[in-house]
């Protein structure tokens, strides 16, 4: 039961981390909007600042979409892990009944029910494993997106040198982007760790007799 509870917690944590990151991503979206306002004020529409605005906006959208898929995946993970928790409880009780002894006349029925419970458990574990793989792919996507943030910061520094205006705000944007990048990478790593933990629990559950 401890393993299934741990698996459930991992799945729940993955969903929570994804939701928190989605909130942080709203900050990134605001950076894009701020840059857009600055572009208008500095008369840079159509210029380098517009490129930055478009890039930030594109990355923010890409992150939001990937997190959306991750959230859908997390919902399935949660649902499956709850079912696994329940079925694992049933399996343990049936196993204990088996150990206590089932009279010969009832062996076949008992064995079939016990077997069905194990099959259902195994099927949900397989589905959970597929969803974890999917979550892993989405985390890879997020990593690739995160790698595109530092070039934007470099681009902003170049623009600052070019326009020599509103440099404080723009350099502030660089700092915010750098922070977000660090946070994103930290969250991705945390989610990878949670995913690995969940996979390890699945492997252990599969080995349980």
């Amino acid at each position, binding site marked *: 039961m401890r393993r299934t509870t741990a698996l459930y917690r991992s799945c729940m944590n993955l969903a929570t981390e994804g939701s928190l990151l989605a909130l942080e991503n709203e900050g990134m979206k605001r950076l894009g909007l701020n840059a857009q306002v600055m572009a208008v004020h500095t008369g840079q529409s159509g210029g380098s600042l517009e490129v930055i605005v478009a890039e930030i906006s594109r990355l923010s959208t890409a992150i939001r979409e990937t997190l959306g898929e991750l959230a859908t995946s997390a919902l399935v993970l949660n649902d499956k892990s709850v079912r696994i928790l*329940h079925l694992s*409880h*049933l399996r343990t*009780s*049936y196993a*204990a*009944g088996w*150990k*206590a*002894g*089932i*009279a010969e*006349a*009832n062996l076949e*029925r*008992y064995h079939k*029910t016990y077997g*069905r*419970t194990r099959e259902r458990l195994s099927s949900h574990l397989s589905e959970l494993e597929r969803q974890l793989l999917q979550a892993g792919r989405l985390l890879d996507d997020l990593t690739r997106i995160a790698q595109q943030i530092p070039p934007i910061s470099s681009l902003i520094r170049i623009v600052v040198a070019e326009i020599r205006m509103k440099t404080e705000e723009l350099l502030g944007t660089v700092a915010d982007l750098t922070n977000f990048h660090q946070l994103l990478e930290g969250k991705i790593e945390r989610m990878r760790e949670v995913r690995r933990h969940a996979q390890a629990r699945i492997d252990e559950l599969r080995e349980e007799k």
Partner: protein
Amino acid sequence: MKIHKLVEGPEHCWYVLARDNERTQSVIDTNEYLILGQDEAILCDPGGTEIFPQVVSAVARVTSLDKIKHFLCSHQDPDIFSSLPLWMGLCPQATIHLPWVWKTFVAHYGHEYVDRFHCLPDEGERLMLGHREFLFVPAHYLHSSGNFHLYDPQLKVYFSGDVGAALLPDGEQPLFVEDFDAHVQYMDGFHRRWMPSERARDAWLARVRKLDIDYFCPQHGSIFKGADVKRFLDWFASLPLGSAIL
């Protein structure tokens, strides 16, 4: 867990499953009652998940599990039927008789079996086991707000749920009450606290005193038989209830 044949008639008999020495000490000891007919069986308050292994093992010793066509879930407590999904996995053809007020609550134990629920109306109902009639007797507010007992008019057995329950100390757990006066100390606190309504108690007593009862079978503690049945009803009639009303 021990299984004892309580009483046997020409077409059916009562078993009591009790005194589970293998149970975890943190869970309350319970009595489960199996009424075994020729082709069908009723299991009354099958118990919680913690004791399922012992109960199923004991039941499987005396009957084929596919004979179990009825479960009584007298009320909603976890020691009554939190083992529902385990039993319904084994006996999917069975009907679960329960107070209508608890339908959606008991569904928390296993919603996938809700189509096997039979909701008992407040006034109670009859149940046929073969040619034999049984009665679901209303015992609302004793202690649960939706609560039923089961009466067997032929063998004069009354399954009384928590009414008559006793919290017996280890080492003093006779199957039948041996000395009523000495037994009172184990029932007194339980009934004063768990039973909330004297009005409900009196209405129930008026109903039950009309029945001919040889065995009065609570879900916890010892069974009353013979003259002790009336002794219990008289004792209960004068007991102040609702001790936690502050």
